[in-house]
């Protein structure tokens, strides 16, 4: 099964659910499903800023496993981080996300 994650809520979503559950499982190839994409809203986009330690691990595993990472463009512009993300990570809105996933559609979209 292929899934995409949408990180919509804040608090511990990135530092805990992503950083301590999903990411280690991806790194160890035992997540159980194929992750085709991750989309980040609001403050969750800070994980995509170049130099973020969780983001660096995520960026690496995403490149290795062909996982699309995308930040919400309005969220990034509002936080003035759009030009500070890891190289090659796009920003966009729903049309961009759907277009980017269209070649590798997930079976399930999980909102966290």
């Amino acid at each position, binding site marked *: 099964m292929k899934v995409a994650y949408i990180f919509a809520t804040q608090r511990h979503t990135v530092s805990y659910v992503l950083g301590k559950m999903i990411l280690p499982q991806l790194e160890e190839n035992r997540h159980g499903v194929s992750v085709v994409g991750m989309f980040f809203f609001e403050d969750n986009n800070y994980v995509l800023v170049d130099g973020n330690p969780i983001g660096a691990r995520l960026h690496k595993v995403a490149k290795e496993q062909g996982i699309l990472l995308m930040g919400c463009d*309005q969220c990034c512009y*509002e936080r003035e981080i*759009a030009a500070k993300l890891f190289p090659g990570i*796009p920003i966009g809105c729903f049309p961009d996300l759907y277009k980017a996933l269209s070649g590798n559609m997930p079976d399930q979209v999980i909102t966290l």
Partner: protein
Amino acid sequence: MAENAPGLCCSASQRLTVGELFERGLRRNREQELSILGTGVESVDGIYARFSLDVVEGQVAGVGFRVTTCTALVAYAEYIAELMPGLRLEAARELSATKLVEVLPDVPAFRRDRAVLAIAAFRSVLLAAESDQYA
């Protein structure tokens, strides 16, 4: 960080960041179009822009627009709308896509084509205004 725009609101300078231009631009995008309409310009991926103008004695008195709600495009359009009032039409024509890109460096490279679209649409309404002026 981008420079401040002229004009004050509640004692706070209006900032020329993509996020804040987008906020203001969304409102302008819903306002009624002005008296002189330009030709709409559409990109191959369906992104659209059209400007409208009010002109008084050869000077831009107001700028309106209808654009697709792409964040970068709305921000570029709003920058044009905030910059132009008071300028003569000849001076308004000097604004380029390169300048727009320079003013908003946060827009990533793959979105900077929106600046070209915005300038093409804006030049269209300037042409319409000049035709009006000499008609």
